[in-house]
């Protein structure tokens, strides 16, 4: 008598908890105004640890890439093996520094040439699950970051800030299915040809531009920029380049497949676009 009652109680509790999680998920699926204190605290505690591991991962990846080159050299000249072994670590470091130098120089030039206020941030973690596309950056509310601010690289638009804690923020990438951006073709800049750019299902890493009129002046190679509509992304940020165009299933509208300008697989440093009136954070590069 006791056991079935207890088992039923357990089942009911489990079902209630599942329904609660499902409802919560439904309520938060379209975004939230703010995150709770507990979430903020959790992100604040875990972000520095994630940052350390991200650095370690990059170092190891860089070292492995260098070691691969080293193997080729090893086969070509056996006499230089010991010398190469000693220099491989140095080479890895040098390669990493060279790449970092190139990236930072590009970012510096971009920062100087742009009209926006920019806060430099480093990517310290990324969501490795394949359903949602987010990254965590090492700048938060104490650096002036606010929810919904646009995030870019020197190459183009990356996404927008999803949640902010004091020292870290989560960024939703353009390739996340929850994100859509108002966009137009830079060449024509036809106001009547504003489309929506979102992730392209079935084409991982690519975007698609929808809602374009059938007569839209768009062709492969065109640059697609943000339209500024919607209030989140400032106008004129490069989103990507048109790869191909076509008619949608009904033949009423046109669509375009877009290669994102930013390389989402190699996000290391990014910029958060802040209002120009706000002074840039000191020493944030």
């Amino acid at each position: 008598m006791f056991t079935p009652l207890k088992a039923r109680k357990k089942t009911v509790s489990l079902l209630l908890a599942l329904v609660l999680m499902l409802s919560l998920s439904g309520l938060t699926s379209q975004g939230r105004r703010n995150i709770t204190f507990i979430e903020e605290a959790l992100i604040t505690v875990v972000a520095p640890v994630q940052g350390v591991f991200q650095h370690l991962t990059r170092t190891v990846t860089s070292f492995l890439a260098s070691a691969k080159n080293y193997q080729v050299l090893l086969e070509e000249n056996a006499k230089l093996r010991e010398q190469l072994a000693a220099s491989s670590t140095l080479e890895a470091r040098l390669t990493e520094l060279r790449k970092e130098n190139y990236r930072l120089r590009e970012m510096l030039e971009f920062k100087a040439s742009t009209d926006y206020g920019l806060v430099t941030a480093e990517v310290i973690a990324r969501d490795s699950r394949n359903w949602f596309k987010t990254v965590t950056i090492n700048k938060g509310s104490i650096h002036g970051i606010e929810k919904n601010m646009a995030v870019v690289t020197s190459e183009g638009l990356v996404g927008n800030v999803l949640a902010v804690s004091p020292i870290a923020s989560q960024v939703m990438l353009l390739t996340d299915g929850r994100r859509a951006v108002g966009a137009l073709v830079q060449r024509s800049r036809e106001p009547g040809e504003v489309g929506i750019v979102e992730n392209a299902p079935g084409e991982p890493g690519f975007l698609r531009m929808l809602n374009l009129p059938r007569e839209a002046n768009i062709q492969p190679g065109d640059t697609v920029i943000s339209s500024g509509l919607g209030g989140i992304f400032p106008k004129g940020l490069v989103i990507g380049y048109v790869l191909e165009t076509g008619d949608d299933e009904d033949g009423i509208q046109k669509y375009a497949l877009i290669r994102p300008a930013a390389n989402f697989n190699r996000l290391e440093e990014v910029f958060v676009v802040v209002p120009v009136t706000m002074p840039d954070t000191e020493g944030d590069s």
Partner: protein
Amino acid sequence: MPFLIISGLFLTSFVLQGSVLAIAGPHGVHPDFILVIVVALALLSDSKRGAIIGLSAGLIQDVLFGSPLGFFAFVNMLIGALAGLLADEIYKDFILAPMLLVAVFTLLSEVVIFLLMQLFFTHSVPFLYYLKHVSLIKVAMHFLIIALLYPHLHRAQKHHLLFLQAGDE
């Protein structure tokens, strides 16, 4: 002690999930280390503990990685509870059982996630494409990961380091 070990296990997993595992993986597919641990721990305990572990891990995962709050908590809780139901049905010293079960539960979690995506988001995910190019690779990875992980967890549980009494509910 068991609480500390399980917390440490998950903390390490969260950090790895956001760094190393986000880079490694064939064709851009990454394993869900947390799901594998939830299944393994649930198979070593019971349905109630499996559900609680899945719920806690999923909630933290949602907070840390920016998915809708409760989304992966729901999925992991469901998987944890179902895996826990089978805890008394499998021979725990036989590694193939958890390996096969993690494959089944990975596929199940992918189906549940797909259904939730359809429910909450307007964009359609081409599920068959996803199943072929992502889910099956993930299943294979989880199959191998649990083979490496489970024996250690099982050994730890034999010394009651994970749960004080397995299946005592």
